[in-house]
Structure formats: structure tokens, C-alpha cells
């Protein structure tokens, strides 16, 4: 039996799971107890192997968990649980929930929490920029459409105001200034200069 045990332990050390020792043929009580314990080790290693291989490939669901009595599997179950939790957290972040934090998971916690804070800050900055752009866009849209303008004096009629009322008509500068950030500085073009102030023009 000792020879068989050595052979099977060597197989285990090579990273493979050996067949169980057939205890039925063993007559020595001590050897029988040893075979039972070795078979339990082989079972534990088989359970861990069946669990860890799919886990290492990123499969988190529907993989066979080692039972609670398999104490050798505990660290792997802990790792699996942490990965499930991080996956859930990542899904929350993907849905825009930045309130989650990962606690007591070492480097994972630090990196993950920094990422969430950074994403949250970036989104706030983006939202602020979008707000500014929307405001600017709203100003621009105020100048959209057909503007009723006086064919002679070039005053513009305020939207929806009574065309018969003189107060409904405002200077173009005033109209545009109220609806945009544009400001006017008054000057005079060469043609008007010639027309109005011909004495001062060569």
C-alpha cells in the first residue's frame, strides 16, 4: 500500500489527480486509516481542481463550489467571492452608480475605489461642460428662424409682439445683444463715411 501511496502522491505533485486507493484490499489498520486520509486529500484536490480551472478562465457562475468541509479550498472560494463582488461592482459602475466602494480587499480596493472616484469626477466635469454647451446652444437657437425686419430702418420686431405697436420694434444691436453674448462697438464703414462725411474724406 505504501508503494501505491507514494506513486499516487507523486502523481498529485505533478499537478494531476490520482485514482483513489482501494481500501478494501488493505488489511493493516494503520495503512487503512492512511488510505482513507489520502483519498480525502485526493477528493479535496479534485474538487479544487474542478473549481479553479474554470475560475482561472473567468467563469464565475455555475462552477462547482468545493463544499464547506473542504478547508483547502477556502482561499479559492474567497478569491471567487471577491471576483463576483468586483464584477457586481463593475456592473453598478457601468450603470452609473458611483456610490459603491470596495472595502478591505487590498490593492483591489485602492485601484477600484480610485477608478470610481475618477469616473465620478470626470462625469461631473463632462456634465458641467454639457450644461455650458446646452446653455450656449439655447442662446444660438434664440436667433433661429425668420426675423421680421423693417425694410427701411432695419429695426427687428420682437417675437410675437404687436406689429402695429412701435415699441415692438427694437434696434438690431439691442435685439442681438439680448439673445447672444455678442456686443457691438460702433464704427463706420468707408462707403457711409464718404456719404455722410464727404468733407473729411479724400
Amino acid at each position, binding site marked *: 500500500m505504501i508503494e501505491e501511496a507514494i506513486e499516487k502522491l507523486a502523481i498529485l505533485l505533478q499537478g494531476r489527480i490520482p485514482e483513489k486507493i482501494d481500501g478494501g484490499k488493505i488489511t493493516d489498520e494503520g495503512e487503512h486509516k492512511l488510505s482513507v486520509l489520502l483519498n480525502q486529500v485526493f477528493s479535496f484536490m479534485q474538487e479544487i481542481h474542478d473549481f479553479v480551472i474554470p475560475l482561472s478562465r473567468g467563469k464565475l457562475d455555475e462552477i462547482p*463550489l468545493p*463544499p*464547506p*468541509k473542504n*478547508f483547502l*479550498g*477556502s*482561499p479559492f*472560494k*474567497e478569491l471567487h*467571492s*471577491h471576483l*463576483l*463582488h468586483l464584477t*457586481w461592482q463593475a456592473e*453598478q459602475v457601468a*450603470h452609473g*452608480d458611483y*456610490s*459603491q*466602494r470596495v*472595502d*478591505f480587499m487590498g490593492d483591489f480596493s485602492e485601484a477600484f475605489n480610485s477608478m470610481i472616484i475618477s469616473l465620478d469626477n470626470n462625469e461631473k466635469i463632462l456634465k458641467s461642460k454639457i450644461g455650458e454647451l446646452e446653455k450656449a446652444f439655447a442662446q444660438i437657437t434664440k436667433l433661429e428662424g425668420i426675423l421680421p425686419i423693417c425694410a427701411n430702418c432695419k429695426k427687428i420686431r420682437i417675437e410675437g409682439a404687436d406689429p402695429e405697436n412701435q415699441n415692438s420694434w427694437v434696434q438690431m444691436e439691442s435685439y442681438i445683444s439680448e439673445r447672444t453674448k455678442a456686443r457691438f462697438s460702433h464704427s463706420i464703414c468707408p462707403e457711409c463715411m464718404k456719404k455722410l462725411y464727404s468733407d473729411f474724406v479724400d
Partner: protein
Amino acid sequence: MFKEDRDHKKFTWKDLGDLEEGRPNLGQNVPLLAYRLLQYTWRDVMITELGADKANDIIIKAGKLAGAQFCENMLNRELHFDAFISQLQRVLKDQAIGILRIEKADLEHMRFTLTVAEDLDCSGLPSTDEVVCQYDEGFIAGIMEAYTGKPFHAKEIDCWASGDRVCRFAVRMLEGAK
């Protein structure tokens, strides 16, 4: 409150007394030792007097009452689920009750898988086939019931110990509760 026979629960949050002023010198915190001593001796006597099933049933019901009161008095129930869970994690950590982690959440069917590490009831106990966190089962179900207004069931489905002991719970809304 404690001496009359009755068939309905009367516990309210104020029965805890004024925790701020009650212990000006010793403060509010007690060692885990005192908590476990209370819970385990109580449990031991209940098992001998009432049997294991009845004792466990009482512990689950007590946990549920505690969870519901905890939710009503320590948590903001108006938050949407994600923010509520985030708050719950934070409060459980701040109160040193345990480290809650959600593994899966199916909001459509109201089913969750979560773990509690460094738990008050069982952290440091050897991992065995025996489920010991009945109080937690009730506590978690009670919190969810108070939050959703629907009946919930929580069951410890796994545990392991790698350093501290971690327990995994399956939590679900009871059938027909929608």
C-alpha cells in the same frame, strides 16, 4: 414589558435606552467577547430547554425583528436599491457588525447572493458543515423586509475560512409576495 405574558412583540428602538448618555465612562462599544458570551450561552440554554429546531427558529425570528428595527432606525429606506446597499455596507462597517459584499443581485425577481465577513456571530469559528448564522439569516431578511415591505427569506448557503470566516447567504423575496 419583560414580565407579562403576551403573544405580540413590543420591542422598539427606544427600548435600547439612551446609548449616548448611558455609559459616560465606559462608552458604547463592548468587546466581541461580551456579544458572543451573551449569544452563545443564550443559545445553549434555549437548545437544552426547547430543542435545537425551536431554538434556531427563535434566533431567526429575533434576528428578523432586529434587522427590521435596524433598517427603520439606522437606514434611509427612501434610497433606490443601489444606494441603499451602498449605505447598508457603510453602516454595517461603521458599526463593526460585518463586511457586507454583494455577489449577485436580481432586482427583477428580488434575489440576492451576498457574503458577510468578520461577522459578529461566527468570525473566528472553525469552518464546519454546521450552519451557525441563524441570527444573521433573520437579520438580513428583516432588513430587506423593512426596506421593501415584502416578506423575505435568507439562508446561509456556504462558508469558508481563510483568515477570517466568511459566510455566503442566498436572499430572496418569498413567492407570491409581488
